[in-house]
């Protein structure tokens, strides 16, 4: 019995097994520790100068959408957000935008060009983005009626996602989706913002 050959074979098999386990995992899969937990509270100033609290929307379904004017994929998803805002008007579904690493004037101009009249909040210092574990834009957090994060969409939201998730969130007070229930892909997911002027930007330089 060639023991050395057997041991070599076993070691080789173990190495192949380890590599198969490691390499078959998606390196871009984002861990989402917030799903199922209570959505982090915040109070931010809107583009119009009002002060808004996440608690103002307690009991309703909230689509917390992180976006920026320099984000191309946000342009793709915007019409869908406008549609959601219109279709679910009066049904306690609220679109809430958070401006990520951008300036007030850029964000205002962008919204004026593309429509939509939901509140957009200025996240100075990216504190809320960090609290939600945001890595780039667009990212949308679906917060259920129980105030817990039901789902996190990385990249633009899709019609399928909206059509399947929002009715469930409206009907059920506690909804958590498994990773298998995720729909849609995330094209054009942008992580890094361009340099901003020293004043007026939301990134740590008020």
């Amino acid at each position, binding site marked *: 019995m060639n023991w050395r050959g057997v041991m070599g074979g076993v070691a080789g098999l173990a190495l192949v097994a380890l590599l198969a386990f490691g390499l078959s995992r998606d390196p871009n899969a*984002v*861990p*989402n*520790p*917030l799903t199922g937990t209570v959505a982090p509270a915040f109070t931010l100033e809107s583009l119009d100068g009002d002060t808004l609290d996440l608690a103002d929307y307690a009991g309703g379904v909230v689509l917390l959408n992180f976006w920026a004017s320099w984000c191309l994929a946000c342009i793709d998803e915007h019409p869908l957000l406008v549609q959601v805002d219109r279709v679910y008007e009066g049904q306690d579904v609220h679109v809430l935008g958070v401006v990520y*690493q951008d300036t007030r004037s850029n964000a205002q101009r962008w919204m004026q060009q593309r429509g939509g009249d939901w509140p957009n909040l200025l996240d100075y*210092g*990216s*504190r809320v*983005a*960090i*609290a*939600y*574990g945001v*890595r*780039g834009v667009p990212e949308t957090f679906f917060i259920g009626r129980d105030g817990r994060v039901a789902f996190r969409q990385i990249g633009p939201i899709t019609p399928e996602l909206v059509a399947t998730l929002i009715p469930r969130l409206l009907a059920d007070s506690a909804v958590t989706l498994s990773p298998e229930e995720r729909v849609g892909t995330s094209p054009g997911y942008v*992580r*890094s*913002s361009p340099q*901003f002027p*020293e004043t007026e930007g939301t*990134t*740590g*330089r*008020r």
Partner: protein
Amino acid sequence: MPRRLVLVSIVIGALAPPLPPALAAQGDTSPWRSLPDSQEAVARDIASNLRCPVCLNLSVEDSPSELARDMKQLIRDMVADGRSREEIRGYFVGRYGEWVLLTPEPQGFNLLVWLLPAAVLLGGGAIVWGAVRRWTRSAGEAPVAEDDEYLRKVREELARGSGD
């Protein structure tokens, strides 16, 4: 004279500690709150052990991205507020997942990261040592066994030949 001045200012510029960007540009309202040296060191240490979510192979301390800069600011604020190192690391892990730590916690499956390289090094070293021993030992032995049939025939023929 101007060249010497340029050289001197280059040397001074290279030796001087880097100014935070806003201080360099404005000078009045700095977003970087000034911390005592000990807290500064703690904040820098914590930031050096967190992974930048944008530039994935850089630490938050080293990354030039805006998000890293904001995370650094948050870390500094948390240190100034008296939060402990574990609390701050725990905060980011709770938001981004364990992946945000540049050095994984040595527990559970992560222990493999710490133990496997040492084990492989030891195991490989043992294999190499055993092989070297085997090679050096066999160099001193007779290359052919004494009861080799063909060797015996050759010796017989040689003996017959020399007796002619």
